[in-house]
């Protein structure tokens, strides 16, 4: 009897890239629900625009590059990039801004570097950084969270749609309702005006630990991240190190001078901290390769985030922190290679 020949090993035990990416999308659902609850349906529009543009440009570039379109489209990686970018944007973002960011993420950050697996920088964060420097005002324009708006409601779907399509404010809506400062923004601005932290957190914008709404968004994001850890889709090194890198300086400065430094809890539960820790920094393609390298990589992101938040020009620093550490990955990889079995003690 004759048999077909195959190379060893004959067993494969891993879930495919597509399955892993799908799990990442599932893990974002709790954060999405809380985001929508506090800030309205605008975030869904962001996701739709980003997803359509991401898949469209991915397919286009794959065709131009003569790669199998169906195979790579179905790996879900473009969709993950799109959703991460969309969830970083304010819920009131005109569609062309989202589309521009997505095109930069997919075409420039991903495919010009060689596509899946070859991108040096985190695509979603490249898209975000491009938007941050190109449309600084739009990127800072977050509405008030539901529980502190005058009517305890998020903006009506009609208003959101109108703004999304035209980028202009409907006549019956005040500009204030559309764009309030985020807690991070507020802290940065008011510290600059010589107010102290106890005064600042007295504002209605702030809840018990951090900004209203943001506390819950970050908690829900962390929940999804915990599930990814449990499913072993991400490993503990990067999240733990980034957490440490952010918390350690926050704690030191808070103890030294609580009047001008927000609490560690505030840092933990504000802005994109949890999204960064569990979903952005853990992107394996642009992260360091070895376990030791990943600890350094995560630590670097955490520290740079704190530095930018505290002394930089931007209220949140995760995107730039991730991109800077992406730059450092080849060096980290070179010096953190594990000792090979049987070479030296």
């Amino acid at each position, binding site marked *: *009897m*004759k*048999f*077909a*020949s*195959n*190379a*060893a*090993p*004959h*067993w*494969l*035990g*891993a*879930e*495919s*890239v597509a*399955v*892993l990416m799908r799990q990442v999308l599932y893990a974002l659902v709790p954060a999405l629900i809380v985001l929508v609850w506090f800030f309205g349906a605008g975030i869904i529009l962001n996701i739709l625009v980003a997803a359509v543009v991401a898949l469209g440009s991915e397919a286009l570039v794959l065709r131009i590059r003569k790669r199998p379109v169906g*195979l790579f489209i179905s*790996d879900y*990686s473009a969709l993950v990039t799109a959703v991460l970018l969309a969830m970083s944007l304010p819920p009131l973002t005109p569609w062309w801004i989202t589309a521009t960011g997505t095109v930069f993420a997919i075409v420039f950050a991903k495919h010009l570097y060689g*596509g*899946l*697996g*070859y991108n040096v920088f985190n695509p979603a964060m490249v898209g975000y950084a491009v938007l941050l420097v190109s449309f600084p005002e739009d990127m800072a324009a977050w509405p008030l969270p539901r529980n502190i708006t005058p009517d305890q409601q998020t903006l009506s779907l009609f208003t959101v749609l109108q703004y999304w399509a035209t980028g202009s404010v409907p006549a019956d809506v005040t500009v204030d309702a559309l764009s309030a400062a985020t807690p991070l923004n507020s802290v940065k601005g008011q510290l600059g005006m010589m107010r102290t932290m106890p005064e600042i957190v007295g504002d209605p914008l702030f809840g018990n630990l951090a900004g209203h709404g943001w506390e819950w968004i970050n908690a829900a994001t962390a929940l999804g991240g915990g599930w990814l850890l449990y499913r072993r889709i991400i*490993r503990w090194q990067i999240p733990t190190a980034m957490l440490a890198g952010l918390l350690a300086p926050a704690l030191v400065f808070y103890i030294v001078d609580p009047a001008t430094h927000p609490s560690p809890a505030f840092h933990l539960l504000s802005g994109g901290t949890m999204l960064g820790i569990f979903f952005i920094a853990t992107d*394996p*393609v642009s*992260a360091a*390769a*070895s*376990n030791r390298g*990943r600890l350094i990589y995560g630590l670097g992101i955490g520290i740079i985030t704190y530095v930018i938040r505290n002394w930089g020009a931007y209220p949140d620093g995760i995107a730039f922190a991730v991109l800077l550490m992406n730059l450092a990955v080849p060096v980290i*990889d070179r010096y953190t*290679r*594990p*000792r*090979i*079995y*049987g*070479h030296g*003690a």
Partner: protein
Amino acid sequence: MTNGRTSNQALPLPAWGIRLESRKVDSETGAIKKMPPPGELIVALKQNIGVPAETIVQPGERVLKGQPIAIASRWGLSVAVHAPTSGAVMAIEERPIPVAGGGTGESVIIEPDGKEERYAGYVAQMNSKRLPPPQIRNEIMEAGIVGMGGALFPTATKLNPGSGIQALILNGVECEPYISADNALLTERSDQVLRGAAIMLAALDCDECLVAVKADMAEAQAAVQAAIDALGDDRISLVVVPAFYPAGGERQLIELITGKEVQAGGLPWDVGVVCQNVGTAAAVAKFFDEGEPLISRIVTVTGDGVGTAANIEVMIGTPIVDLVEFAGGYTDDAAGLVMGGPMMGFSLPHDQLPVTKATNCILVAGQAELDPSVREMPCIRCGECARVCPAALMPQQLLALARGPDYEALESQGLQDCIQCGCCDYVCPSYIPLTSRFIEAKQGLWENHLVSQRSALALRRFDARGERLERRESDRSDELQRQVDEIGPAGEIDADALRQLKQRVKSKKPGDKT
């Protein structure tokens, strides 16, 4: 180092490796079955790492069970080969043999006569443990015993490490799924294994033997412990190894048990350890106790593609087709034939191949048992491969280097340290055939070495020739000077004559006899 370790003490979990479903139940339940001689035996002469044995029989000759049919070659590592049963030598010819990548080897074809008439040249030796070590090694070499775990390294050579061996590790870990030949051996014949261990300890002049059994092999553990108690030999103890793949790899097992690493290019005895397969120990005992050389072995025949999975004691040289027939034949589901386990075993293209001393398992896989080759995706650098690699390599980096291929970097990043266990393939979410790539790259690296070594040798020879020619030139002028001196002081000879002489010498062509 291992003193004071009580038996059954669990070892720490390794930082590498994977947990695999063991799938051993099928063949564990039944006792070891003994297969009668088949219609034809194909006994390959290369049953060891090194050089094939040299035949000492002729076609047409009658041979007896256990009679040497080939003796160890003088040209390298080699061990004798014996007739598995009595019968007639039909031919000595090239036949396909089961090796990775396929190939043929000179084989002695024997037609058994069914009489099982024994060769009288070997007899049982009751005082085996008191024989001097060199004699034990000679007899083991004579008995054709090689590493039965699949490595086929001549056992006698491995039992000759010089002094300073602190422990003999008997490897009964069998970490690959499906394979249960060692498990069955330990469960049923632990006493034989331990008798072999005692002989090996005598050969090594060593006082500690650890029998390593995997954590999920409870029956085998109990049997080994019972045999140790019955024997009352406090030099031998049981060690339970975590059920991780590849815990049964020699270096991995030594690391798990002793915490020591065998350096690259080194051997286990550098860290005071000798590792032998339990089947090898049993073969040693069989030779000294019964006078029977290595002519049979236990093979696990398993998988959905075979009638009744079983551990079968079978003569070396039995065609696999007959072995499968004995195990109930193929089922309709039979889709793949693998020698060894699903992780490191290799596909066999057909079943007209003989069992060798390395055949621990014949896996007749059903449709659903082996993973089909799936579409490979780019590496996403998830790092799972590095996490499971028992050699602490970074397969994802090696893969990128192998594409070049950048041989210098491949070497410095440990390509040669890859043990081809397949763990990286197993955990890769992009389904990249990493192990195959590394095997290819190793071949390329080796060829690259060959080219640069040839070139270095040529350069050395070329330079040496240059020196030689120079030396010859200077010898010639010395000789000339000597002749001039002989003729007399320079003043007594006229200049013209000297010039003529010099010209005469110079005009002689190089290579001519002077």
